[in-house]
């Protein structure tokens, strides 16, 4: 169970039609790989974010599988073309079954 997991997202509030905007996302998470051992030699169980998705108005635009080698606090930055006013929805899936969500409105002017 990961503590203090907090998603952060930066999306421009406005864009012109069909503009390509840059979206930055970061989630604070230890991303314990499952490869390490504690002082007593016991394996520290794997606890990572294993999937990240971004949707725009319900349409899936990014779907990423995360592996144990990805470092603490995974950061994704990507560009997206915005055809219309709508909402980006970001979802992170944790090994422990938790799902973290964040969404941001983009207005096309």
């Amino acid at each position, binding site marked *: 169970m990961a503590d*203090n997991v*907090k998603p*952060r997202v*930066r999306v421009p509030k406005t864009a012109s039609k069909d503009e390509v905007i840059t979206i*930055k996302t*970061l989630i*604070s998470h230890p991303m314990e790989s499952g490869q390490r051992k504690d002082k007593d030699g016991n394996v520290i169980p794997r606890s990572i974010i294993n999937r990240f998705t971004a949707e725009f108005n319900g349409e899936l635009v990014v779907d990423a599988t995360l592996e144990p080698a990805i470092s603490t*606090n995974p950061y994704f930055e990507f560009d997206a073309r915005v055809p219309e006013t709508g909402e980006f929805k970001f979802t992170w899936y944790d090994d422990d079954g938790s799902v973290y969500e964040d969404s941001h409105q983009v207005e096309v002017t």
Partner: protein
Amino acid sequence: MKLQFTVKSAAVLAVTLALTAAQADPVEDDQLVINGELEMATDAPASDHLDGALGDSVYSGWRFRDTETRAMQKDDFDNPMFLFVDAALEAWDTPDGSAGKSCADCHNGIDESMKGLRAQMPKVNDKGELWSLENYINDCRTNRMGAEAWGWNSQNMKNMTAAIGVQSRGMPVAVKIDGDAAPFWEKGKEMYYTRFGQLEMSCANCHEDNFGNYIRSDHLSQGQINGFPLYRLKDQGAVSIHQRFVGCVRDTRGTTIEAGSQEFRELELYVASRGNGLVVETPAVRH
């Protein structure tokens, strides 16, 4: 044929030397603008007390770092220190200790009450002792909150000094060096010019005589501390002022003085005063 070849090599060598020199100087063609809004000067006229030791200008360490590292500091989203700042802002509002009080219970909002504080640290307290920000925090924790003191270089402490420091971002460093601070400042100055360790190196050997040059692969800055605590890419974590001092003394192959010691607080005062006029960049990013 042979003559031609020699001339060519000399020309190549000259070009290489010119390039190295250009890289070594503080970067001139970049401007530190945080989040596209807050413009920050990264140089300032050198203080009178330096007596020309650093030339006419003092430069932030930001000017000695690579393009990518400089870019990370320009955007708070990309600056990993803000994860730590966020953690401290939560701690600010969370009661701790036997008195059941949080920082906010006495100080209210961190943005108002802590504004400008970083720029004056370290300073002489009302008992005549030289205190760093860490001392003030632990004084609050032990005497007002009834909580346990934080270790000087503990994560909690560095989170909090970063969160307090960022409230002064963009304000010029202005530590007091006269009056009751003068004796501490003199001792700090003496330490700055004292050679340590098997390598017999003083702070000044690198950060005054050789800033802009390389020591092996490291690009030496003036050793300014206006961006601390900062994110160090090499350590993948926050680094405090005294932590860096310990690292420097260790690198001379000397026996280090402890973080939080009287000696290092005096050195902190002196080093901070060398950057008087530079703006607070806390929390900076360096490599």
